[in-house]
């Protein structure tokens, strides 16, 4: 509570807030950048952009929401803008509903090779439209449905429906049992 009070009274500096966020969510930001950009060079640029915009955003942080929600909102916004800028043809991106109906081209090829499975998972995420990407990335980061709703602005029912679809897709493609995020 002391931290929140310090923030609301403006005692915590923008630099301190950024350092704290980068320390806590640095790895998650990297994974998020990987979900939005396949090219390693561009991914590094995107990640740096997210960090930079995050630092800028903290000039206006007054504990309106949790630090995690703030970080994810900025990160997803920068990453979605990146997709809009880079990807001219959105119709080639799919929704969770469309992906769910598509047959798995690697059917039967799943195995213990973690690197390959991770590549397939990243590829699957990169095919998705930005909003659905946010939901699946948040789900994979172990965020619960309420937090996902808070970040994305989707209703709890909509988030639950999307998580259900995500689980189906992961089950089909990775033979995954999976626990509940809701």
């Amino acid at each position, binding site marked *: 509570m002391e931290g929140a009070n310090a923030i609301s009274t403006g005692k915590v500096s923008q630099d301190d807030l950024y350092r704290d966020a980068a320390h806590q969510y640095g790895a998650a930001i990297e994974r998020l950048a990987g979900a939005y950009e396949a090219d390693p060079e561009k991914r590094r640029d995107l990640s740096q952009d997210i960090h930079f915009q995050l630092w*800028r955003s903290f000039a206006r942080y007054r504990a309106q929401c949790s630090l995690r929600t703030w970080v994810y909102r900025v990160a997803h916004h920068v990453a*979605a803008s990146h997709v*809009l800028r880079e990807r001219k043809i959105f119709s080639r991106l799919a929704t969770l509903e469309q992906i769910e109906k598509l047959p798995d081209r690697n059917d039967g090829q799943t195995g213990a090779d973690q690197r390959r499975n991770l590549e397939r998972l990243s590829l699957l995420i990169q095919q998705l439209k930005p909003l659905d990407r946010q939901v699946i990335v948040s789900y994979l980061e172990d965020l619960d449905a309420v937090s996902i709703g808070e970040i994305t602005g989707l209703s709890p029912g909509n988030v639950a429906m999307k998580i259900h679809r995500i689980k189906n897709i992961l089950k089909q493609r990775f033979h995954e049992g999976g626990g509940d995020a809701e």
Partner: protein
Amino acid sequence: MRSDSSGNDTRKLWQEQRTEIPEMTLEKIQQKTQELRAKTRRELTKSIAGPVIVAAVCAFGLRFPNIAVRAALMVAIAWSIAGQYFFRRGMWSAMPPGDAAQSTSLQSYRKEIERRRSLFGRVILWLFGPAVLAVGVLIAILVKLGTGPRGLPLEGALRNMAPFLILIVVWVVSFFAIRMRQQRELQREIEELDASERTQRG
């Protein structure tokens, strides 16, 4: 990857992937600020392409005593100058990160799409429009010169100009075709967001 009781699932696989966290020191952030400024300058330089075409055509066209030609070129100059103001003014309306953090992703994503869609309209109206008008006037001048008292008949002049005219037509058509396709994609994305929001309300 089979799910098992140890929880070795996709989420674990995702969270345990190797990541290289960039060390973003405050010096690096300052460097990034400078890069952003340089990038903005580059964007502004690109927007000067239209006025450069207008200026080049005017430098050539204003030598001709024809009132209609001069009037059209003056309109192109005024349009182009106004365009620089209106186009640049719109360039700064990107959502600041502080606002994005206070909006949900759905809201900030929609705003970003709408911003990109309106950017297209501004490019057409304020950059492409004056350039096309100036090029049109240039073609009219060239045709007039080619069909003068000692020149060729209209058909012959147009035949001589065919490569240039084809190039212009290809430029205009391809510019519109590409931009219109992007515009349709953005519109479709907005419609999908509308549908998603309707579903949420329902």
